Structures are given as C-alpha cells and as structure tokens.
C-alpha cells in the first residue's frame, strides 16, 4: 500500500453508500483532501486520492471494474487495493473504507493540519 500523506487514527462517516451509483465513483472532500470512493458492481468499497498524479484529473469520474479505475483524461490505470498506477512511479494514496449500517466509514482520515501537495 502506498502511504503518501499523513493519516490520523479517526473514523469519519461519509453518509449513505447509496450516494454512489453502483459501478461508479464519487468525490468527498474530507478536510482539505479530495477522496474518491468507488463502489464496484462485484461488491466492496474502495477509496483513493481523487486527483490523478499525472495531470490532476478527477479519478471519481473514471470507468472502473472490480479492481481498477481508469483516469478519464489520459487513461492511466490505478489499482484500488494498492494505489499502484500503470505508469512507473505514479501512484495514489489509498484510504481504508467500509460500510457500517449502510453508511460509508473512512477509518483513517487525513490529518486536518496536513496540507498535501
């Protein structure tokens, strides 16, 4: 797993999982961080840093399958579990998410005082 930003041990409720259409992603801004949460058709929930490291595209708008998202700008591909990208040296931050009572819960969240690049 790629750990880029400083995370603090605190869970945050992002609201109903129904906000995310099945098979798509949705962007939440948590503190200063944009986090894209994806809901594959095969089940499970994944969260990645929303901005593509290549040219800043919003990954939440990308097409996904059970394991990846494809960036809508230039089609780089990122793995949900590890954040590893299809281009050497490009990866995104991964966040831990799960569903509790129908709500999306982020279990570690970005440090509010930390300003990411």
């Amino acid at each position, binding site marked *: 797993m790629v750990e880029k930003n400083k995370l603090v041990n*605190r869970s*945050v409720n*992002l*609201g109903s999982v129904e*906000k*995310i*259409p*099945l*098979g*798509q992603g*949705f*962007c*939440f*801004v*948590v*503190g200063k961080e*944009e986090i894209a949460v994806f809901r*594959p*058709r*095969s089940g499970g929930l994944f969260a990645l840093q*929303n901005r593509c490291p290549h*040219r800043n*595209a*919003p990954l*939440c*708008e*990308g*097409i*996904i*399958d*059970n394991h*990846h*998202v*494809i960036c*809508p*700008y230039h*089609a780089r*591909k990122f793995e949900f579990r590890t954040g590893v990208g299809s281009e050497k040296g490009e990866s995104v931050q991964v966040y831990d998410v799960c569903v509790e009572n129908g709500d999306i819960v982020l279990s570690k*969240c*970005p440090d*509010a005082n930390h300003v990411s690049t």
Partner: protein
Amino acid sequence: MSKMNRGKRLVVIGNGMAGARVVEEILKRDAKKFEITMFGAEPYGNYNRILLSNVLNGTETPTDIFINPLSWYEENGITLHAGVKAIEIDREKKVVVGRSLNKNDSPYAAENPPLNGAATVEVPYDSVIIATGSRPFVPPVEGYGGPGAFLFRTLDDCAQIEEYAKGCKKAAVIGGGLLGLEAARGLMTHHVHVTVLEAAPQLMPAQLDAKGGRLLRSAIEAMGIAVFCGKITTRIERENGLIQRLIFKEGEPLETDMVVVSAGIRPVTEIAKASGLTVERGIVCNDQMRTNDPEIFALGECVEHRGQIYGLVGPIWEQAEVLADVMTEADPKAKYTGSKLGTKLKVMGVDLVSMGQTESFDPAGEVVTYREPKRGIYQKLLIRNDKLIGAILLGDVQVGDTLMQTFKEERKVSDNRSELLFGVPEVSSLTDVLEMPDSLQICNCNGVSKGEIRDRIRTENCTSVAQIGKCTKAGTGCGSCKMVIAQLIRAYAGEIVSNPSEHYYVPGVPLEKSELIAAIQEKGLKSVSAIFRKLAGGKEHAESKAGLASLLKSIWNEEYEDERDARFINDRVHANIQRNRTFSVVPRIYGGVTSAEELIRIGTVAKKYKVPMVKITGGQRIDLLGIQKEDLPKVWKELGIPSGHAYTKAVRTVKSCVGTDFCRYGLGDSIRLAQEIERRYQGIESPHKIKMATAGCPRNCSEAYVKDVGVVAIEGGKWEIYVGGAAGGTVRKGDLLCTVDTHEEVLKYVGRFIQYYREHAKYMERTYGFAERIGIGQLKAVLIEDELGICNRLDTSIEASVQSYKDPWREEADLPADPAQFKGPEWIPVLKEAVHHG
C-alpha cells in the same frame, strides 16, 4: 552445435520453400548426420513465398513472412551462401560451384551473368539436393523488360512493384490466374487503377469451369478491378522509356503506366541440365526424389515426378518428408507417389476453393451443383464411383476443409450427396481434434501438423490463433484452418484466453466482433454487466466497458439496458470534460445553419452561466466552454437546442457549403441535403465518431472529400458519395462509393454505409481505417451490388436506430437518468469532528 561429429557433406541448391523445408525435416530426424551447406540465389534467409501476396497488399511486412532467419542457420550449424547462385555441379570432382550475384542480377535469370572475375565458391559434397524452384514465364510480348515491367516471385519483386506503383495511376496485370489476381488485388492497395488481362476466355482456367470463371470475374470487377478475357498482349509501347500502353492481338490498346506479368511458371533446370542430369519439363525424379545420379536428389517446383510438375506447396511438404526419410535412413523405403491438389484464392473479399477436376467428361460421372445468385454462391461437385474427384466452391467455402480431406483421402461419400455441401461440417467436435493423428497437416499453406500446434500450445502457452500463427505460421496463409486451430487450443489449453492486442472486439471478452455480436444476440444480452457475466466468466474489465456499451446500443437500440457506469464520463453527462474539470456544450446546428433566435438564446445562456469562452468550432457550430457539471441540465434546457454529440462516438456534424442557395457555382442544394442527413442520422452511435459534409460542387468548400462521409454535387444533378475520408491526425481522401440522382438515394446509401460500419468496424476504428481495411471494391460489392444479400437488412437496422433516437439533453434536462452524476464533490466537515473526538 559442433560440425566435427557430423559425417557426410550435403549441399542444398536453392534456399526457397522446398530447400529449407527438407533441411528442417532432415534435422528433425537426425541432426548429426550431415554437414550442410546451402546456396540461395536470393540474398535472404528463407521466407514464405505464398505470403508475398500479403506483403504486396500491405497486410504483412517482409519481416513477418520470414520462416528461418539467418540465426537459425547458425544455430543449426548450416553454412548458408545467401546471394550466391550455384552454377555447376561437377560430378567428377564432386563439388558444387557457386558465384555471388550482384545486387541487380535477377536470382532466377536463365543465363548466368559473365563471371568477369566474380567471386566463386566450391563446396565438396557427398550428396546434393536441388531445390531451385521455378521462374515466372514471360509470354512473347514485344518490348518486355526495362522500367515499369515486373514479375511477381520474390521479396525484391514485391519491393520494386510497390516502389514503382507510387508514381503510377494505372497498372496492368498480364495473367488472370491465382497469382495474377492476388497481384491485382495487392496493386489496388497502392491506389492504382488495375486491369487484368487474361489470354484464355475466362479467369483461373486451371481451377474453374466457365461458369465459375464468369462469377469470379464479376466478384473481381466489383472490387474495382477491370478484367478482360481472351486478350493476348503482343506489345508494350513506351515513350521516353516509360510504358504508355499495351497493344493486343485484337481490340483497342490499353493505356497503362506499369505491367506485372504473371502468366505461369517454368521449372528452373539449367544447373541440372548443365550437370548432365535427365531433364524433361522438370528435373526427372523417381519415387525417392532421386535423379539419375544416385547421390543427387531434387524436390519442389523444379521437379518432374511421374510426368507431373507441381506449382503449389502441398506436394513439397510431402516430398520433403519422403526425401528426409530416405536420406537419413529413417525409412529408406519411403515413397512419394504424387499429390492431389487443392487451392484457395487469397484475395480478400472473394472466397474460392477449388480441387481436382473442374469438368466431367465421363458419362459415369455425376455433377452436383448448387447456385444462389443473390449471395454470389456457386458450388459444384464432381463425383465418380462414390468418390469426390473435383470441387469448386465460390462465395461460400465453409465446407472447403472437409471436402479437401474427403478428396485427398479418397473417402467414399454419402449417398445423400447434399450432405457434402450442407451437412454440418464435422471437424467441429473436440473429440475429433483430439483423435486426429499428430502427423495430420492442419495448415496446408505452411505445412504445419497437428502435433506441432499441440506442442506449441503446451510448451509456449499459445492461447490464441494469432499466437499460434506467430510461432508456427499456421493459419497465416489462406486462413481456412483457423477454426481447427481454435479447436486444438480449446482441446489442449482448456480455453482461448483473452489476448488484448489481437482480434477481439474488446480485450475483456475473448471474441471477435462477429462472434461477439452473435453471442449477444443468441443469449439476449442487453447490458454490459450481463456480457461480463455470461461471456467473460464474471470478470469485469474497465477498458472494455465503453466499447461494449456502444456495441449493445447499436444492436438493441431502445431495448438496450443502459448502465451509466459503463460509459465514459463524457457520455454519462453528455458533455466533453475539459482540462480544468469543467465541461463544454456544443448544441446541434443542422448543416451549419442557425438563426437569430437560436443565437440570442445561446448568447443569453452564455451570459447567465458566465461561460468563459464562446467559440466557433471547426465543425461549423458553436461551443460553450467552461460550464460547471452541476449546471449542465439547466444549460441544455434553457438552450432548447438538441445535443450536438460533440462528446461521443456517434454521428457528429454534417457541414455544408452555401450551395445553390447563393453560390454562383452551386450544382446541388448542399444545405438542404446536409440538414436532411443530419436530422436523420444525428447522434447514431458507432464505433467511432462520424463526421460528414455536403458540397454544392467539386470545389468542395465544406471539405466533403475528407470527411467520413462526404457528398458532392456534380454536373447533371447528381451526387457523388465518398466514404472513409479524413483530415485530422490522418489525412485521406474518401473513396467514391457511388453516384446517385436524388436526396432519397443519398440518405439510403449513407445510412447503409453507417450501419455496415457500425457492424464491422473495430471499436475506435475511424472510417478511414475501416475503408482502407475492407477496401472500396468490397464496400461497393456489398453495399451497392448487394453481393451478400444483406442490404435490406442493413436498411432496416439503421431505420430502427433512427426511429429509436432520442435527444439526450431533452430527455435528461428535467430528470437525469442518474442525478448523482451531476453532483459535484461533497464536503465533509472534518475539522469540527476532530475537535469533538480530540
């Protein structure tokens, strides 16, 4: 491999298909028996001559067709003298003498160029194999030779033909046999107008009866190749050294810039003759491929065996096995008793298989024919004593492989003769392929056996037909064995694994486009996730989704079950995403004509939503750039103009020029026609975008010649329809599909082309690639002459899509299909929580 422990010295003269093959067979049996030296007059390793047709038509490159690269010779300890012609076998001294050829010397010239001190080599031998092949026959035509006149036999010939064709508009091919037609088809890809001249009264006289010849001729003509039969060329006329025209025994001369002669072949026998071996039409050999000198053998096209000479590779593979058995003493009594011949024409768009006799002159013989004019099918079987003695299949060759086996093995045929043509082809069951003997030849063009294919599947994990082709060349000739190869893969590798770079429509579903469409229809799959479930083992594949969505839409129209997650962001929100994450909105402006009211509305919306840029596009319309995602539905609604589909793979613009309304040159009403086309086909989804234009005269102010579809008015109230044009990253002038009289006809043919493109193009293949791949001749044959009998169906299908078209902006302005899609990011107040928890 060391040469030390090898015993006898073997010299092979000729490094073509036969020479290299027999060496491979020998090495397979006993790699140590001989110390081998080869002479090859051509300056290369060994390549697959039958694929020269593909090199000429651009589907393969010269490197694709090499069988044994130079390293193969080294690895096997073979000394190769490439570019060296053997000129003498000194049977007294037991040496073969060779001399290097200069770059410009023809490898198959009958006369050797004077030695003039050229370097020679002498190689001592214990045994010799002659495999000198044959040379093209040039009929007596006055003025043959010099620039612009070519033969078609070697890689160098191909390169020279291609190079010369660049400067030509017209080409003539003398000879309407198998090779002549393949040459003609190849020349067409170099954008010359091609005429075939056959001396006999019909095409392919060696393989077809008169009726088959007539039908083949219309198929060839439909590709845009002119054909004359019964034409005997007597003279080539030149001016300033350049070819101007051909003169015939009878009839008008033909203007042409170049000539390719392909009028038959003759065995190359000079070296055998000069060495005192018996030569009739070819080098005479017995059933062990031995000449009258017991140490000298021969095989391939240079040989005459039991009075027969052959011009195909099938017999060579059989001869090579026998000769290798004899020479290595694996089976000293092996015998070659002759071959039964079948051929297949490798001309894209013409399916033709022929074997054995073409006419029956025997009162006891039976002739069975089947004819289906609408689909261009003609099939004929000749049967005697319940055995197949000949067959012609034109237009539909599905049963070709089965018939070929029946014919070669002289199997008894069923009393119900129709089973031969219509019985389910039997090769299909897996147990059948498992039970085939290892030695059975699967690819007849490249001589690849079942055992070899199975080994590659196992050892090199080949899991697609194309990979097998790369490893063994099987399936890369005429292609008729691909079905069996696929079955072998299924039988030995379990299943065909997806192989993204190759022929599947999308990488995530292991099917070619036609197979995929068939499976979707048969199983009634209407959503992208259903396809993954039923055809890809439940495995989703992100890159494949958009392509599948587009295909499903064009198959099912309104029955299609739309899943938004399968769409690219632009198609989810019907707008084009920009680099700053805003969107652009391009309303439809039919034929490039707008009105004051529309402009006012556009202006009002632009002001209200503070659109940072309003731009006139290259597609004759107006782009509002920089709109927030959340505002899109409101913008559409307030514009009140349908979507221009500037964001999707669909029919986009139809540009027009001012035409007869205002222009002093206008010959046709280009504005009205453009609007009619655009209203009818707007937004129809397709493998890639379709941009069109109409022009009121050939001055072409709307750039119609370089559009996916361009319609140009010409004198006489007619319209020319061009397809496959491009002026983006690729620039290509469209090909003329047809010329028609009325707007209705324009709409009909444009729709038909669009539908055919939707059904047959690969995902993301623009029409310029598509038209080039299929060929305008084929497009004309299918879409205008209705050779396949599918035009009615195409017309009905496109009509259904037109009828089911709905403007996405209007549909979703009030009630988006997926409201979440138009939401921006949601802010989660984290700081406050931090305080609480902290």
